[in-house]
């Protein structure tokens, strides 16, 4: 989607801010209809800049921008409000979501469904919901939107429906197959797969196994890029 653009009042979230020159910022933005776009916010670091308090990550904004290059120029930023500021542990989880989007989503690739899932996950985190189900739901939508959707209801080999009591191995890019000796591939119960399909994370074993599965799949699709936010989160828990 190159060529000259002029976008007005586009719902968007700030993913990350980088200082640029003395007084400006480059803002990595995730917008509803234009996907991930880098925007230059001129003068946003000046003491009296009106944008300074508005360009906050995890807050729904409406942004306007123009330009034809790779980095567009931010023209307007409106605060939509309604989502409490994330604090503490939730803030760290928010960074994890942002890092996933920044590292997995190509630029200028629109994913309205993913955008909505992101907004819902942030809202749930800000309101203090249990975080594991929110993260798993978001990761599931992310993989699906990127074209790596999970198979959770049938055996990828035989096509037979998943049985609650059976044990499965999840083969990356294929799906679950009835238990084979697959070395270090972690085992999953049929119930975990069915629970994940239904977004039901009440069972502790489902929570534990689904986390492991998602970690394995995301690591594969990120092609070995490390996730800083996870490392920092773990280090903070260990202190």
């Amino acid at each position, binding site marked *: 989607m190159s060529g000259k653009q002029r976008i007005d009042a586009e719902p968007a979230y700030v993913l990350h801010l980088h200082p640029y020159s003395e007084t400006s910022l480059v803002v990595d933005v995730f917008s509803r209809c234009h996907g991930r776009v880098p925007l230059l916010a001129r003068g946003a670091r000046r003491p009296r800049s009106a944008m300074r*308090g508005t360009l906050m990550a995890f807050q729904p904004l409406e942004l306007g921008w123009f330009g034809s290059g790779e980095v567009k120029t931010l023209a307007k930023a409106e605060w939509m409000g309604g989502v409490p500021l994330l604090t503490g542990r939730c803030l760290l989880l928010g960074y994890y979501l942002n890092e996933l989007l920044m590292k997995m989503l190509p630029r200028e690739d629109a994913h309205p469904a993913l955008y909505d899932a992101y907004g819902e996950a942030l809202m749930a985190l800000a309101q203090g919901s249990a975080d594991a189900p929110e993260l798993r739901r978001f990761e599931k939508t992310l993989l699906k939107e990127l074209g790596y959707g999970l198979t959770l209801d049938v055996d990828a080999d035989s096509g037979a429906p998943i049985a609650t009591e059976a044990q499965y191995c999840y083969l990356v890019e294929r799906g679950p197959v009835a238990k084979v000796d697959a070395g270090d591939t972690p085992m999953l119960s049929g119930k975990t797969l069915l629970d994940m399909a239904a977004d039901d994370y009440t069972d502790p074993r489902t929570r534990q196994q689904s986390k492991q599965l998602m970690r394995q799949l995301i690591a594969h699709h990120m092609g070995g890029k490390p996730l*800083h*936010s996870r490392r920092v989160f773990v280090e903070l828990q260990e202190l």
Partner: protein
Amino acid sequence: MTRVTRRGESSSSLDELIEALRCLPGVGPKSAQRMAYHLLQRDRRGAERLAHGLETALQRLRHCTRCNNFSEADVCDRCTSQRRDPTLLCIVEMPVDAISMEQTHAFNGLYYVLMGRLSPLDGIGPKELAFERLFARAADGVVKEVILATNFTNEGEATAHYLSELLHARGLKVSRIARGLPVGGELEFTDAATVAQAFLDRRDFT
């Protein structure tokens, strides 16, 4: 790095200087070139002072073992001052933040400079910021209250949250500087986010 200039001859020390100047924030190839020519053509004494200043600063300056700020001695003047209250410890992100706090004349305790903030997306965590050193400093037995004066950005808030939890666990009293409208601020001209937060952080008023 030796670069061949347009006429074909190479002038490595000039290029090296231009390349070196580019390490300054906000300095691109054009400005670096302008600076290099200015120093060499018009201000050779200035250039000497700059070179000397950089060299001595690099040699002499280290981190104060108490506040982590830059210092020429093991412990800086502020940390050894008798006139300051050693029971109050204010944690700031950067040396410039300590300078801002000093300009208020509202604080007479001591500082600890983190030299950064938790920034998970940039890979900056507790190890990079040497949290352990701060804990050792705060738990010296003299400090009674730790004041968290990190910025009100998401990164600053994350830093304050974790420091507060970890310092509480070590039995210290922890406080956070307040946020809200600036002095002389008018609601009409304040951004919505600040007003919203000022509203949430409202306090009893008598």
